């Protein structure tokens, strides 16, 4: 009896693992930043380099950091979605222009519309490294207390926004309401 059950069980287990493996994305790397304080930065603004953008100024409300560059195909792909999301006005979108040319980035926003409340420029890519960015576009959700709540790697879609971002944004508001 065991002679049949054991191999069958081993086969089923192995099959289950391989089956799950079929639907997992091997290029997806979970961020160790989730649940941790968002790395701070103070960077020049794309619109006016004299006017710096600091994470400290954003504390107290949930906000979204979107890492993009004009060299990035996925960023072009998600841009219309970002513009539409910005129109909904649930949270401010802050752009992190990663290793890009200022003039090219300004042209991009002029031509395609600007979904960002502000765009910080990271010419050297140091802030991107602090945030563990490895492939644009990446989108982070930061809570009112400055904690990273979620990270999406790949172009933003309405599906992801409605399923992953909006409920978490609502949850931070509900939490705050209960505290006050």
């Amino acid at each position, binding site marked *: 009896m065991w002679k049949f059950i054991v191999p069958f069980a081993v086969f089923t287990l192995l099959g289950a693992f391989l089956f799950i493996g079929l639907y997992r994305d*091997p290029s997806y*790397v979970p961020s*160790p*930043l989730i649940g941790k304080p968002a790395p701070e930065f103070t960077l020049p603004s794309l619109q006016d380099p004299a006017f710096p953008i600091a994470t400290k100024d954003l504390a107290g409300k949930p906000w979204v950091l979107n890492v993009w560059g004009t060299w990035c195909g996925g960023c072009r792909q998600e841009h219309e979605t970002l513009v539409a999301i910005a129109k909904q006005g649930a949270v401010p979108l802050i752009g992190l222009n990663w290793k890009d040319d200022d003039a090219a980035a300004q042209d991009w926003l002029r031509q395609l519309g600007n979904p960002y409340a502000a765009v910080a420029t990271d010419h050297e*890519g*140091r802030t991107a*490294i*602090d945030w*563990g960015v*490895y492939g644009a576009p990446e989108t982070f959700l930061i809570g009112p207390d400055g904690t990273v709540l979620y990270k999406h790697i790949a172009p933003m879609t309405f599906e992801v926004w409605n399923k992953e971002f909006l409920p978490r944004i609502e949850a931070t508001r509900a939490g705050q309401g209960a505290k006050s």
Partner: protein
Amino acid sequence: MNTWSIRAVLVALTVFSTGDALAVDTQRAFDDPQLQARYEGITRELRCLVCQNETIADSNATLAVDLRREVSEMIAAGKSDDEIRDFMLARYGDFVLYKPRMTGKNFLLWAAPVLFLLIGVLAALRFIKRRAAEAGIATETDTAGPEAGKS
């Protein structure tokens, strides 16, 4: 030259020339050979996450270039290898290390070889015991003679 020495030269050429031809990070980061060795060692055990199957020493991706700069700056600032690894771990997670650490999450992975060996040894022991017992029965019946088996 005879054919054998020509072959030897060709083999030597193919074996020893590839390393330099494949090197991406050709600029020396440090004049001090000791620091340079540390730099090369650590960039060879960090994964470039854009390309995933290359170390940051082997990759031409801009992120790899940035991370190499970060490593060389940290070495110049007198940071230890562990501090540099922790810097990368805090940002990119365990996946960035080519030599993985043992953590609670992957403990089973580390324990699996020992576990499988144990299972194998136990199975072998059981098998040997059963064979020994069967052999014992066989010799007993043998000594009892062919008549005993008939009844």
